[in-house]
């Protein structure tokens, strides 16, 4: 039986569209697990920790980012609870004094300068404005990295948070009537 040409064309077009829209986003990203099974929710609710308790500013105003092991060891030198995740963390990192190799969702490329203190202290932005509800999650989601560019998927935006592309920065600055020249970020 000979298949009509228009059906072949439509089938091919549908397959291409499906691959482009549905398959491609799965293929382009490489998924890697975080080194530690960390719960922001537990730390916020049980320990009463605020974002800036761990993600603090240094004395000179620079942002320390992900806390170093010393910060974690301050509380977790010995187990505080009974969870397997905490035990694994202490055995795997605290006791051997080994820094966890965290995969930073919001890591900007090297050619971008971003000042946290300007946005948080001067602009009064909440952490959630850029990072979504990460601080309320019970489990760290896997880190997804673009196989070609090496960028985090979060830069492009996820369901949880909007993106951190240049256009997103410019849009926000436009909405707030702020300047947005090249040298603000590309110094």
């Amino acid at each position, binding site marked *: 039986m000979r298949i009509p040409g228009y059906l072949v064309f439509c089938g091919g077009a549908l397959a*291409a*569209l499906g*691959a*482009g*829209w549905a398959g*491609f*986003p799965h293929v*382009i990203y490489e998924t890697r697990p975080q080194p530690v099974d960390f719960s922001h929710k537990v730390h916020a609710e049980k320990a009463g920790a605020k974002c800036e308790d761990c993600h603090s500013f*240094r004395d*000179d105003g*620079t942002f320390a980012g992900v806390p170093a092991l010393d910060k974690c060891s301050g509380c977790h030198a010995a187990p505080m609870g009974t969870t397997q995740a905490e035990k694994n963390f202490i055995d795997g990192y605290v006791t051997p004094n080994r820094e966890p190799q965290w995969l930073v969702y919001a890591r900007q*490329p*090297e*050619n971008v300068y971003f000042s946290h203190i300007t946005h948080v202290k001067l602009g009064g932005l909440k952490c959630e404005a850029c990072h979504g509800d990460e601080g309320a999650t019970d489990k760290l989601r896997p880190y997804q990295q*673009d196989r*070609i*560019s*090496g*960028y985090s998927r979060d830069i492009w935006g996820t369901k949880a948070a909007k993106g951190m592309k240049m256009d997103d920065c410019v849009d926000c600055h436009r909405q707030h009537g702020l300047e947005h020249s090249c040298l603000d970020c590309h110094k």
Partner: protein
Amino acid sequence: MFTPAPWRLITDTALWSENWPGIPRPARGEIKTRYTNCALCPAGCAVRARLVGEQPVALMGVPAHPLSFGALCPFGLTGHQLPYHPERLKQGPAHEAAEAVANAIAQCGPNERIAVLDLRPGRTASWTYRRAMAAVKNGVYLTAPPPLGGASVNLSAARTVLSIGVPVLEGWGTPGNVLAARAGFRLIQAEPFESRTAALADLWLRIKPGSGRALALGLTALLEGKAGPLTPAQAAAETGLSENQITDLARDLAHNGPALVLAGDDLPEAVPLNRLTGAWGESLIARAEAPVPESWKKAAPPTGFASVPDGSIRALIIDESVPGDYIPWNVIAPKLVPDNPVVVAIAWSRNGYGRHAQFTLPAAVYPEMTGDAPAAIDSPAAAFRIFTPLVPATAGMVDPAGFIASAAGMNASAALRERADAIHKAGRGTLFTYADAKSTPVKELKPEDFWKALNQGGCWMDAPGKPAAPVKYDEAAWQGKPPAPQEASDLPLVVALTGMPGAAGLVSPLMSKLYQESNLRLGRNRAALNPASAAACGVGEGSRAVLQTLLGRRPIQVTLSASTPPGVVEVEASPDILDICGAFSRARVAQS
């Protein structure tokens, strides 16, 4: 086409190129602060460095510093990029050079000399050279003549400053100190063309090129009230000013004092003029040098090239590791013995004396070098600052002081420490520490603490004494400049040097492309001429021509510029050009 895939692939591929090998990446690590002093010019400004890990990423001034006041010039701000300069020397025949110097010392005849040329005198390394030359048979320590007879300048004691061609506001003294004192004096700039200093001066007197001497003599005649070598009328004719302008200027100097006259080392007439204005001993003062150990004082005296007979230098070692006064090679070359002289240049690149030396040895550059800065020309008191390296020196670098000391059979590796101990022993002055901005009398410090503080960013400043005039000004001893010019008709143009004379190109390779490559900055061997001057010389835009001076000739390419005054040829102060121009610069441009 109708899915995100191809578009995303295009973007991703572009972003991928950012991560290719060879793309520079900013350092990551702990952010630290370290203090040092800038070694790029004799000002030796205090520097606060921001480091990421061990990598300096930004340099800035130290605001509370008593002399530099937190200011750094553009070259100093970008100094941390210099170790990566593409023209840096990475290796050199150090053993062969040491052997050649040792042979030259052994074979040195009674009328021959072993010489060291120091481009920045007054450092501890300079004392090492002087000691080494005293220890070597027929050793001579050569240096450039100091401006204003070696006097230091106290700008804050002056109310009127007449500058005859001195770039007061663009790199002459300590930038922060000059700017801090600027509000207290009226600046009169006498110069043939509108330099940045002329543009920022309170009064710009546009004198004819090469007529600074006539202006000084005319003013001297008016202030002395008796006839001198030039009458005011003759001075007016030579300078292109009116007689009234010169009279008004003399009145300004006499009545709006204390008045100070600044001039380069090519204008000794400024010294008697300063005696007449009362600056000599008030704003032009003698300054004691920072103490040195007693055992160092048996050292060779500083000597000008004029005192060295032609054809007498068997071996010449040139310390070009720090930018300083560049002495034209055509002044040096006649002093060398005709048969196989040994010339060793210790330099950061081959672009300076390395072009003429048999051996060019690589030297560390700021901020990886160790050394010290003597007091700047505008420092009223003696000072001692150490260049603490911010990054480790590149492997294979030659320490000029170590090389010269070892040629003389000395060990000078602890010279800096010995000097610091001598200063501490003298018990004078205060130590200003950069990290806490505190001044502590030296008497209250232990030697170990004094040394430690100097290495962590500190400046010793001598106790201020009563201003005194320099003991003497021996002009004859410093006549290292070329002979007097021929008739103006023979060499009708005056050479105006642009850029940073003496730096020999030691400018960050990453300074803006506008500065490095645009037509706003003359390239090497390019000369700018006013269209009228160019027509008189028979050259036009882009012409290949020859720049002829008393010291030699160099091929150039002509650029026409209406902003260049008639009678002036503007050239980049590259070593090639300095070799034939020097401080005294008249020239002719002719079609090649």
